[in-house]
Each structure stands twice: as C-alpha cells, then as structure tokens.
C-alpha cells in the first residue's frame, strides 16, 4: 500500500499553522501534527483537526454545472468554459469592462489571486476585490495611513516577549487559538493582559483587566485611555519627536475625553480605563492585538487610527514585544491584499492612479491600457448590480450571500446580473444563483503559497487530486483568460510565483529553500524600504515608517455613535462574531460532523436579565428581529454578554439577514458588529 506524508498549510484562519496529511492510495486518510512549525509548534485548533472532513466531503462539486430552469445540469469543461467566456465576454463587449465584476478569494493562494486580478485588469476591469473588504479593509486604510504598512508588525511568537498585551475586539482564544499560547507565555512571565470586548469570551479569561465595552464605542474608550496617558505625562516624548507628526492636534482633541466621559459612553468603570491606560503606557514593551471587533464598524477606520495613535504616543512599536497585531481572518487575506485583489491596489500596494504602476504592469503583462483608477468594492459591486449597471460577475471561492451583510440585498443583486459564474468547491448559496458553476480544487489539492497574518509566506503542497472532474483554479483562470483572447499559456504555481517575485518587491527575496524550511516573513527582502536595525529582523518599523517622510501620522479621531441606535421597538444591541468550532460562512465547517456536533445551529446569546424579562428560558427557540428581517435561533442564556447586548454567531445562514449594511466612508467596510434588535419567544 502506498503511503505518504505531505506537508500542508491549514486552510482556515490567518495564523497559518502547518500539518501533515497522511495519504494512502491517493486518499487523505488522516493528519499528523508538525511540532517543528515555527508558529503553531504542532498545535491545531478544532477546525484544523477536522480539516479533512471538509476535504473528503461527499458534497464536493465534482462536475461543471449549467443552470437549466431551477436546477443544474452537469456539462463538460469544454462547454462550461465556453459558456463562461461567452457570458463574461458578452458583458465586456456590450457594457464595457467597467460593468463586469471580479470577486477574488482570500482563501485562494497568492498565485491564484495574482492571476485572477491580472485577468480582471488585463480585460480592463478595475472591479476586482476580495473579502478582506469585510474583515480588515479598515486596517488596510487606517494602518496604511498612520504607519504606512497595513500588516502585523511583529511575528506572533514575539507576543511572548511583551510585558503588556492590549487585546481589543479579538477573541483569539476561539478564533486564532495558537496565538493564545504566546499571550499565556507572556502572562506567565508577568505581562499584564488587558481585554476589551463586549463579551466575556475565553480570551477575557486571560485578562488581568477586562473592559466589557458597549459595542461600537471603541473610539471613546481609546481616547479616554489616551487622555489619561497624556494627562499623567506617560507619553513617550522622544519617540513623538523623532518618529511621528501631529501629536499637538491629538492632545487638543483629547481634552474632552476624560476617563469619566469615556466611562459614561463605554459603560466601562472609570477606574478600569485608568488602570488599563497606565498599564499599557508604563510597561517597557506593550503590544496591541485586535481583530474584527474593531474593524467591522462604520467607524472602523477611526478605530484603527485611534489604536495607531495610542501605540504611537507611547512609542510601543519597532521593538521586540511591542507593535500591533491585526489578526487576519482568512488563511490568505494578507496574501490576497499583497497580490492586489483590492480595487484600490495593484500587486505590492501600488496605486492605480500612479502612472508608473500601469506602465510597469502594462509592460509585464503585455497590455497597453490597464485601468488607472479605483473600481467598485465587493459591496459596491452588489449595489451596482442591483441598480442594473454591473451586468456580469466572476466569483472565485466566495459566498457573499452568507458573508455580506443583509443577505436579501445580496440575493437581489446576484439575481439582477445577466451572467454569473461561480468557481467553488461546494454548492454554496451563492453558487445556487450562478449561470455556470466551475468545480475547483480545495487547498490540499493544489500547491502554491499562502501569506499568514504575520506576513509569513509559506508553501503548501498537493496531497491529493481534486474529486471527479474538479480542476485546479490556476488552470481554470488561464483557460478562461485564453478563451477571452488574452492568449495565456497554462502555468504552474512555481512559474506564477516567479512572475510575482519579479513585480512585487516584498516577495522578491523568496527562495524555495526558505519556503521549504520555515517560510519567509516578508520584511527580509526590503531593507532600505523598511529600514531594519538587525539585518533580516522580522520586526517592522524598527527605525522608520514607510511613509513619504518616514514619520508616522497621528491624527485625532472623534467618537461617532453606531449607525443604528436602540429604540423602543429594538431595545437590544445585536453584535456578531465567530465561534471556535466554525469558520466564516461555514461552507467548510458546516460540512464537518465533528464540528457541527459542537455547535449545530444558530443561537443567540442573551443576558439572564434580558431573558427573564422576556420569559425566555435557556435552549428554547426564539426570534431575533431587526429592521431588516428576523431569524429563528436557540436562546443561550449566558453571562458572557452584558445586559442589553445580544450576540449571534455569523456562520449560520440567517445571521446576516439581520445585519446592517451601512459602511465606513473610507474603507467601505460594513457595520456588522452593531445593530438594534428585539428578541421574543418563537
């Protein structure tokens, strides 16, 4: 019997754990842990442990499908590709590339994303985006603006060197479990852990100071903390002088945010705000860890800017144990952004408006006219489609119906399209609406690189072949490109990586040896661009910031209440998030029995007080209702949430029927974290 052990990168979150797949007779039969992995050190979260259940799921798409009436017919690849090309080509011809949309996936490899945006832009469409829009667009804009680089500044295991860790809007214990190890190691060495979250999550268990914040009031909390720091003279003046600009304005703006006022807005005791502020400012090395609890707000970009302000006035950046850690959701969000599947960036974060950008890529791709402006973001594509402007879409590995806010609007949008081609591994709700469905390959069925949240570019190997007639995404994209007259040749991941290296400076120094060993943290290649004190140090911003003048930009932000306030008919605040055993829209985890067993269906967490006030008992089915719609969920009466706040896990369809599609003006990220709702017995 043939047996093999293949090293792969976990398909779930952005931590980028590695493990081995045991392959027998061409089937993936089990996993083996990888104690040598630099980040996960052999550990895996429940999802990683169950990864094969999704991979081997019988429900995988196995044939190309074509819509016929309400159902689908299996068709040949020849036909499917022809249809796809015809559909997209037609729209391009009749309505122009401006009205065709391309949705890439932060689940796909760097190579696939690179090729995908190359396809879109070569065809003249600026409308290419990925779901980073829904998780960390505010980071991309906010951090980019403040410190010039929208990425985790230090390696994850460096958290263990920190002496104070400020966690806000992140529940890494459940969603990035391996991160918890380093936080605990720091704690055991005496670090103070501060956790700000509306819920008492397992992450909050680790906290020395727990700030149970009212959803959507992050800016108030942060300004309150900064007020204390400035008032008590805890700011790092030399750092402000040498490395930043704009402090004066900030100091001015903070005057109104006394700890007392912050306490009133955030419902966090004044004393705790002061303690937290002192702990963060006084420690020799403090780190900030945040996630979607900060970004998914109308004020998402402000929240991120406020965090940047906090770390800048204390100078907690550019040293071991300091920095800021935006924990990315998908295993390749960082990579997808690096690869330019964001409408405002070409690969390597080069702006389309910059003439040199279009020149460079035009020359490299042999295209004379590349789009030289931003197009539509993922959500704007949906709007535009609903309004009948956008006519065709090519969606690769995403399920907007379940991941975008307000599912109903998304459905209408996709319905309004003339033509929709979806490329996925499962018949997702979105795929159900497609004209053509292309069966793609899952992570272990192809090779390529993923870039983890700590900027670690890692190679993942092919363990098995795709089921049935499913094909590799690189092949599919190239075939479509060919049929749309771009005349591309088929190419391997290796070849695409070579092209990436030639065009993306941060990836230039990658070598196969690095990838084989412990991956490649993408600062190494760019001494000079990001000056680094110690050669090859993986820590960003040790000496300067990649901003025009090398200085970080402090800019005041003010508290704006959430878009939707509570009202008599919707008296409760609804916030959403993830649970440890499921993943995003659940297209994979919902197909893993051992995970479903832990969290089988949609539930709503509410405080005993709110429950008893409504005569709701634990476990009964209730109706959660917002201005947009309602969903049935099992009541979970729990002390995790504060009175007046309810929580819904967004993995289960139904959740996003309720959420609110109001967006951050800059990052265009929707406010998924706050809505007003009512809960009643079902």
């Amino acid at each position, binding site marked *: 019997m043939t047996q093999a052990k293949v090293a792969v990168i976990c398909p779930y979150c952005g931590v980028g754990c590695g493990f081995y797949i045991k392959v027998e007779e061409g089937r993936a039969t089990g996993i083996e842990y990888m104690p040598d992995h630099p980040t996960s050190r052999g550990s895996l*979260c429940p999802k990683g442990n169950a990864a094969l259940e999704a991979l081997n799921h019988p429900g995988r798409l196995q044939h190309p499908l074509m819509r016929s009436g309400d159902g689908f017919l299996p068709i040949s690849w020849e036909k499917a590709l022809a249809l796809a090309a015809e559909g997209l080509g037609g729209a391009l011809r009749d309505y122009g590339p401006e009205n065709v949309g391309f949705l890439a996936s932060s689940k796909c490899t760097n190579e696939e994303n690179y090729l995908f945006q190359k396809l879109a832009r070569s065809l003249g469409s600026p409308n290419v985006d990925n779901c980073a829009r829904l998780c960390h667009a505010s980071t991309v804009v906010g951090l980019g603006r403040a410190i010039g680089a929208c990425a985790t500044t230090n390696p994850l295991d460096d958290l263990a060197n920190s002496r104070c860790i400020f966690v806000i809007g992140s529940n890494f214990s459940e969603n990035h479990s391996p991160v918890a190890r380093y936080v605990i190691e720091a704690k055991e060495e005496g670090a103070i852990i501060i956790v700000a979250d509306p819920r008492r999550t397992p992450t909050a268990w680790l906290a020395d100071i727990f700030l149970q914040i009212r959803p959507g009031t992050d800016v108030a909390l942060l300004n309150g903390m900064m007020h204390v720091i400035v008032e008590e003279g805890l700011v790092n003046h030399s750092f402000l002088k040498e490395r930043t600009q704009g402090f004066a304005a900030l100091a001015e703006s903070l005057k109104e945010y006394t700890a007392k006022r912050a306490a009133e807005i955030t419902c966090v005791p004044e004393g705790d705000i002061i303690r937290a502020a002192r702990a963060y400012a006084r420690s020799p090395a403090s780190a900030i860890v945040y996630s979607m609890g900060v970004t998914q707000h109308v004020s998402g970009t402000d929240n991120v800017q406020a965090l940047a302000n906090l770390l800048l006035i204390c100078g907690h950046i550019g040293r071991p144990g300091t920095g800021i850690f935006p924990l990315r959701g998908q295993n390749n969000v960082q990579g997808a952004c690096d690869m330019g599947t964001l409408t405002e960036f070409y690969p390597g974060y080069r702006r389309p408006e910059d003439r040199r950008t279009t020149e460079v890529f035009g020359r490299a791709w042999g295209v004379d006219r590349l789009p030289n402006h931003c197009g539509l973001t993922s959500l704007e594509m949906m709007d535009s489609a609903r309004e009948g402007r956008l006519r065709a879409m090519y969606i690769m590995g995403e399920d907007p119906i379940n991941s975008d806010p307000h599912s109903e609007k998304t459905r209408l949008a996709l319905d309004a399209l003339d033509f929709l081609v979806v490329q996925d591994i499962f018949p997702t709700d979105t795929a159900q609406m497609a004209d053509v469905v292309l069966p793609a390959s899952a992570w272990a069925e192809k090779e390529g690189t993923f870039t983890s949240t700590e900027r670690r570019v890692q190679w993942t190997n092919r363990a098995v072949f795709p089921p049935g007639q499913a094909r590799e995404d690189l092949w599919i994209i190239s075939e479509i490109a060919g049929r749309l007259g771009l005349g591309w040749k088929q190419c391997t991941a290796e070849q695409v990586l070579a092209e990436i290296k030639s065009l993306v400076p941060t990836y230039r120094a990658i070598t196969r040896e690095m990838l084989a060993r412990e991956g490649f943290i993408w600062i190494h290649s760019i001494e000079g661009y990001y000056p680094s004190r110690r050669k090859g140090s993986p820590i960003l911003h040790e000496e300067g910031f990649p901003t025009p003048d090398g200085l970080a930009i402090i800019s005041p932000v003010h508290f704006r209440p959430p878009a939707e306030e509570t009202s008599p008919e919707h008296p409760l605040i609804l916030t959403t998030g993830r649970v440890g055993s499921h993943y995003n829209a659940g297209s994979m985890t919902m197909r893993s*029995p*051992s995970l479903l067993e832990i969290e089988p269906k949609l539930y709503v967490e509410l405080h005993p007080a709110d429950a008893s006030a409504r005569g709701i008992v634990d476990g009964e089915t209730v109706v959660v209702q917002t201005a947009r719609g309602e969903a049935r969920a099992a009541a979970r009466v729990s002390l995790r949430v504060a009175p007046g706040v309810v929580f819904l896990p967004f993995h289960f369809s139904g959740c996003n029927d309720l959420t609110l599609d109001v967006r951050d003006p800059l990052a265009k990220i929707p406010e998924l974290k706050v809505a007003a709702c009512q809960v009643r017995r079902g």
Partner: protein
Amino acid sequence: MSVYVDMERCIACHACLVACKQRHAGVSNISLQIVEERAAAPQLCRQCERPACMAVCPSQALVQEDAVIAFHIEKCTGCELCLLACPFGVVWSDKLVHKCDLCSGDPACVATCPTQALLGTFQEAVVRIRSRAAKTLQRGLR
C-alpha cells in the same frame, strides 16, 4: 501515565475534543465543561491507580495494563456499572464503553492543544505550576 490539565491555560477551544474524535472514529473521550463563563476544564480518564470503574466491572472488561486502564470490548457486557462508579464521569457508554486510551502512548489531545494546557507527564505539569508560582513570588520581591 495520564493526561494532566493545566487549568490556568485552558481556553475552551475544543481542539482536544475534535482531535480525540479524529483518533477514535468520531467519538470523543474528552468532555469539556465551561464553568460560569470564567474557566474551562477538559474532563478525561484519570487512569486512577485504584480505579472504581475497574473494581465494579463484573466481566474484567476494564483492566489495568501498566499505566493505562484498558478496555476490552469483547468482554464488555454493556452493564454500564462503570459509568455509575467513575467519580469523574469520564467513562461513558453507548452500549459500548468509551474511555481515554491515551492513544496508545501519544495522546492526540496533548499534541494538538494550542496552549499546551494538556500535558503528558506529571512532572511537566507540576513543575510548570510550581515555577509559575515561584515566578509570581519572585516578581513580588522585586
């Protein structure tokens, strides 16, 4: 030998549970209790020195094989007395008894635990806890 739990490190991520399922045909021999939203405790067979479960087993289906309390399916009559006897409720049954078998030497739960809250040896566990206490003291001195 047994699997030892460092309660201070458990974050209720359920990785041990799922890892155990993968090793034992979809059935987990670990149960995870979250207590008052403040702490969690993975429960699994303590491999007691003088196991009540073994004492009550009428058919010698549960026997002590060096460090492990082993379960011999062919001898089990499904009387479920062991369930009643186990003081920790970590021996359970769906007509057939399930209990931690230490994955014949390298427990998957220990290997996978993201925070190393689960440990394979008594020494590791107790030494870590003790040095954690010592560190706290030492910080107090400074």
